[in-house]
């Protein structure tokens, strides 16, 4: 079962009942979406931004790692509208989302929740945390305590203090 860990000012916590779901890409399906907390795939947002905004509920964005940086830059004026941006790791060795995260945080100034979803391992928490992710969907409930302990330990870690950045 998937579970969410989120960083708050003081700590990392397991968030029960995470409401966010990934919305379908197809336009027809979008029109009939029930009320809820939806993460829209980029293609859906690009087509239906007006309709999505008009729903009057918080919304987020779901990005696959093949998202071109230029498409992210086009989002800049609207980034403030997204409550959550989820970056997908189809497999943990696909490091493209690391670059996308840096672009979102450093270049485009996105300050909302940045969430790692997909193949998230204990071993990549370090890198994602350093790049400004502040929420993680872990696949296995039993790893959550370990993950939270690991994230806490990273606060004192020398591996977090990267020189020349």
């Amino acid at each position, binding site marked *: 079962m998937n579970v969410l860990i989120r960083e708050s000012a003081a700590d990392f916590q397991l968030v029960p009942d995470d409401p966010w779901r990934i919305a379908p890409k197809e336009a027809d399906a979008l029109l009939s979406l029930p009320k809820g907390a939806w993460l829209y795939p980029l293609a859906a947002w690009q087509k239906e931004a007006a309709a999505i905004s008009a729903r009057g509920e918080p919304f987020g964005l779901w990005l696959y790692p093949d998202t071109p940086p230029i498409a992210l830059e086009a989002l800049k004026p609207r980034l403030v509208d997204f409550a959550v941006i989820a970056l997908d790791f189809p497999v943990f*060795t696909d490091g493209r989302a690391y670059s996308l995260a840096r672009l979102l945080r450093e270049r485009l100034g996105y300050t909302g929740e940045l969430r790692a979803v997909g193949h998230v391992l204990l071993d990549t928490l370090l890198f994602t945390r350093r790049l400004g992710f502040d929420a993680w969907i872990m696949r296995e409930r039993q790893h959550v305590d370990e993950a939270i302990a690991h994230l806490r330990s990273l606060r004192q870690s020398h591996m977090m203090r990267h020189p020349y950045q």
Partner: protein
Amino acid sequence: MYRYNPDDLALIRERAAQFRAQVARWRSGALRDEEFRPLRLQNGLYVQRHAPMLRVAVPYGMISAVQLRKLADISRRYDKGFGHFTTRHNLQLNWIRIEDAPDILDELTEVEMHSIQTSGNCIRNITTDPFAGIAPDEGMDPRPLAEILRQWSAMHPEFSFLPRKIKIAISGSAGDRVLSWYHDIALRLDGEDEEGATFTVIVGGGLGRTPLRGQIIEQGLPWRHLLSYLEAIVRVFNLHGRRDNPYKARLKILVQRLGLAEFSRQTRDEWAHLKGGPATLTKAEYQRVAAHFSPPAYRSPTAQSAARLTTRKTAHPDFARWLERAVHPHKIPGYAAVILSLKAPGQAPGDITAAQMESVAALADDFSFGEARIAHEQNLVLADVEQGRLFELWQAARKDALATPNTGLLTDMICCPGGDFCDLANARSVAIARAIQTRFADLDTLFDLGEISLNISGCVNACGHHHVGNIGILGVDRQSEEFYQITLGGSQGSAAHIGKVIGPAVPAARVVDVVARILAVYRRERRPDETFLRTFDRIGSAPFKPCLRAADAETRAETAARN
């Protein structure tokens, strides 16, 4: 050389602890094999043909006597008492147990060593000139920047899962001793502006299954912007390099596909955002690191010592020979750099026993301020030896088979571990090297053949740099038999280029004969003082082709007789 501060040390200790936990999770089943694999590779741990292999980083080839003694100790207690130096300055331990790897890493931290990023799809060990800091043709000691690159690239959060590995070399000399045309990225000092040194950036080179010469993407890049510029290149690679096919994933393939102009445009677009940002180097930071590389306390030469050297040369022709091959000029009068050959007859090229590691440590302490370097040609270098003590050094080095006077000669082969150890290899390399060493053991013959490079790789991954050998030997698998393809005319250096295939591949048993025939053609055709490469460049491959045809005919005749 660079000494770790408490933060540097804490980092590698934490990394070792993290790795210990990863091994434990893998053993408990919490990490699947396919998850553990990239994680262990990032920390230099391979699972090989006979046993796991741990590749220990020797950043930009600098190693201390203390570190050498530690490696000797580790290789005795955890391995079979020897190691193998690679073309990226690293030391491979070929017979360790996975469960010992965490303990080995802990022990390495005691001497400020690690195995971070000696494999995996990340930025690999930074390489440089083995004569860095002392070469007469040097404009700037590249080691402070190499150390900065090491720190920048180690555990880089954005670049730890790239499409494929990135190999970076840096050079501060006029001469190219770092193989800069065949790296993913090479940085070469090209002058200076009002703020200091500037660099030429070469991108998209590499050997392997698709050998490509790098191309110049930038010139006159100020040193302060090196890191931001590298970040731009690696980011473009990270986002756009192919991830569907590992054989088409290297940076060189992306540069080739986009073309230099487009790759350069994308890099510059990225750089426009990064330039002047937090990755910009400061003078204070450079000086902090550079202070670790300040020159040792050199002594002034005496007229006496110079005279004594001349006498010794006359009295000991063996010593004179060794001087001719093993000694490299030094920018300080009265000093020399000395190459300790790891290519003695019967020694697998680049292999070193624990006893030899300890001997090198003792020699480094006695003769070279306690430091040594690893050259990418798989030899060791003592960089700061007083010329007046060369005879003494020669006598000491000879005892441990470290004074073979063959540097730059035929038996100074670059050679990968090959099929005897490596899982990727199609054929054995060391057996071929041994056969060549045996056939060409006579020093008079070697000196007569003169400057020549012979490089052997056991497969297309080209760890033995066969493409750039004057004679290149590549192991190929033909119907489960070991065959070898021969190339001629490759070279390293400023005019580096790839050799040409001159005929059909030959079976293992014929390789030495073919090499002998090729060398006979050279001897027949050469002009006075003309090296093998010069002769080849002048006469081309045609006169050499019959060597292969003859071997091929003999192989066919033999096969026919057997059937």
